[in-house]
């Protein structure tokens, strides 16, 4: 019969090895926590505009250590407060757990840490999320000890991010256009009110969003300092999102690759948006051409009623195809000696879809009407030689010129208008998103 297995006494060396391995693991975990706490504090400081130095991993860990030490002090202060409160009311420990919990959850009294949210939990942020067991960590882990690996892999990841960001920009743009088209369809659909839940029909949503926008404008008009704060927050967010030097480098090669990939994605999407805003992407053309659905059909009677001949009416009813369109910023501004002469990219902008209104499907007469209304220096034009009347005149058509506000809005090409509204929406969305981030971290 075999006796029980003889238990081996751990040798001095094996227990020492275990102890060292355990301490190393703890140290690694501790370093990781310090980095995470440091990054969180750094992100907070970026949003709030506080000046914090953490350009290297070591500085980041030092910052994390300060934060954790501060949290410890805050916890101790709370514990002391609880003990003092208990002593004051003469309670035995754990006599009233409910009041204890209330006291423990009260905010820490120490002022210096008020801008560090949720002090007892250090969470990794969106950009620096650490995914244990991630394939990327495994694949790149072996390069952590090579100093040149971080910038090289980070640079490559950023380039990959650029391409992915441009694709993401295209997808977002298409998504926005589809949403706009769907919303437009719902607004013109008489069944929308019946088919939608109360308060959820397109008209109500539009009114609600307009009221919210009006509230925002009115509020920021009353409190301009809040607008400055909004712009500052958006600018900080943009800096963190786009500038690799604006955030500390990742602790490992994998972290650095993720950070630079995110930045590359943001840069790529911004590049796509700027590119389409400048050159006039397919979306812009779609928006510009879609304006025809909102215009009344032209009629021969309209011209006959104003004393024009049938030939003139026939000429004016032809599609406006070969003209140069209506320029929003007048052409002379781009000429030699003009205010926009020599400004980069302005030559291409002058005749682009962003500066020229030439909606598809307009008749010549409709274009002349529109151009008369929005261009203060246009009064009429010659008609071709086969037409008895020599010229078309806005005055003869009974038209009136729009005022400065009308010219600003109705003279603006549809793509530019869409971009302006989209830009306002994006700004509002960004402010809201930044505020939501802060709300989540600061309940």
């Amino acid at each position: 019969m075999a006796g029980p297995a003889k238990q081996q006494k751990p040798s001095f060396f094996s227990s020492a090895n275990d102890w060292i391995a355990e301490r190393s693991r703890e140290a690694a975990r501790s370093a990781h926590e310090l980095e995470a706490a440091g990054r969180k504090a750094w992100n907070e400081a970026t949003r709030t505009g506080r000046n914090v130095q953490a350009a290297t991993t070591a500085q980041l860990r030092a910052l994390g250590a300060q934060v954790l030490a501060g949290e410890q002090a805050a916890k101790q202060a709370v514990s002391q407060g609880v003990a003092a409160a208990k002593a004051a009311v003469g309670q035995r420990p754990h006599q009233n757990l409910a009041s204890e919990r209330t006291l423990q959850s009260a905010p820490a009294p120490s002022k210096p840490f008020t801008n560090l949210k949720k002090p007892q939990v250090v969470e990794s942020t969106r950009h620096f999320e650490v995914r244990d067991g991630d394939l990327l960590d495994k694949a790149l882990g072996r390069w952590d000890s090579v100093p040149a690996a971080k910038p090289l892999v980070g640079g490559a990841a950023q380039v990959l991010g650029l391409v992915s960001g441009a694709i993401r920009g295209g997808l977002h743009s298409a998504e926005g256009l589809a949403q706009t088209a769907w919303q437009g369809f719902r607004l013109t659909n008489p069944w929308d009110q019946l088919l939608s839940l109360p308060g959820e029909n397109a008209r109500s949503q539009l009114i609600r969003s307009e009221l919210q926008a009006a509230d925002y404008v009115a509020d920021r008009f009353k409190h301009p300092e809040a607008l400055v704060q909004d712009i500052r927050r958006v600018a900080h967010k943009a800096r963190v999102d786009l500038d690799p030097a604006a955030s500390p480098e990742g602790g490992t090669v994998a972290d650095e690759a993720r950070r630079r990939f995110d930045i590359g994605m943001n840069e790529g999407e911004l590049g796509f948006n700027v590119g389409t805003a400048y050159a006039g992407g397919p979306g812009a053309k779609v928006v510009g051409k879609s304006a025809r659905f909102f215009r009344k059909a032209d009629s021969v009677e309209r011209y006959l009623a104003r004393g024009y001949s049938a030939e003139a009416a026939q000429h004016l009813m032809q599609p406006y195809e070969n003209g140069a369109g209506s320029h929003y910023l007048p052409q002379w501004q781009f000429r030699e000696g003009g205010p926009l002469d020599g400004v980069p990219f302005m030559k291409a902008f002058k005749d682009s879809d962003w500066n020229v209104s030439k909606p598809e499907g307009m008749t010549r007469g409709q274009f002349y009407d529109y151009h008369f209304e929005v261009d203060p220096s246009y009064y009429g034009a010659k008609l071709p030689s086969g037409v008895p009347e020599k010229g078309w005149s806005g005055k003869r058509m009974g038209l009136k010129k729009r005022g400065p506000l009308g010219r600003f809005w109705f003279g603006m090409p549809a793509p530019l208008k869409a971009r302006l509204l989209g830009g306002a929406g994006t700004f509002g969305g960004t402010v809201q998103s930044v505020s939501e981030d802060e709300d989540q971290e600061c309940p």
Partner: protein
Amino acid sequence: MPLRTCAQFTSGLPDDSIEVEGDIVQFGGKNVADALVAILRARSFRVSDPGYLGVNGWDFNVTEGKTRVWVQVSDVPPIFILMSELHRPFNFFKGDFGRRELHAEVLAAMDAGMKADDRFGDLSWRHQEEIEVDGAGAPAPY
């Protein structure tokens, strides 16, 4: 008294618009603009060559330093419409600066030159809101 910066007139110069298959591909008025440019250059103003503005017609700039007078000529049969604007340099400390008088000098030169040239007729100077208004107009821009 504010300047009358616009004018209506007729011209005996030939119609220089270009038509292709019943459609006007270049609106007329270049020869009128050329004549006005020549009038101003003869009086020592620095004037650009006329530029095409599409349906609006033709325009040119009279410059002196950074001060500029922009002139547009539109063919709106049976008349031509002349419009002008003064553009002066601006900065934060001085506001608008440059020579305001340049505008009056340019308009006076065009007025004198057109009256002396029998290719132009029925010249009347107007404020912008008086364009195509019957009976309005004055014999001189000031």
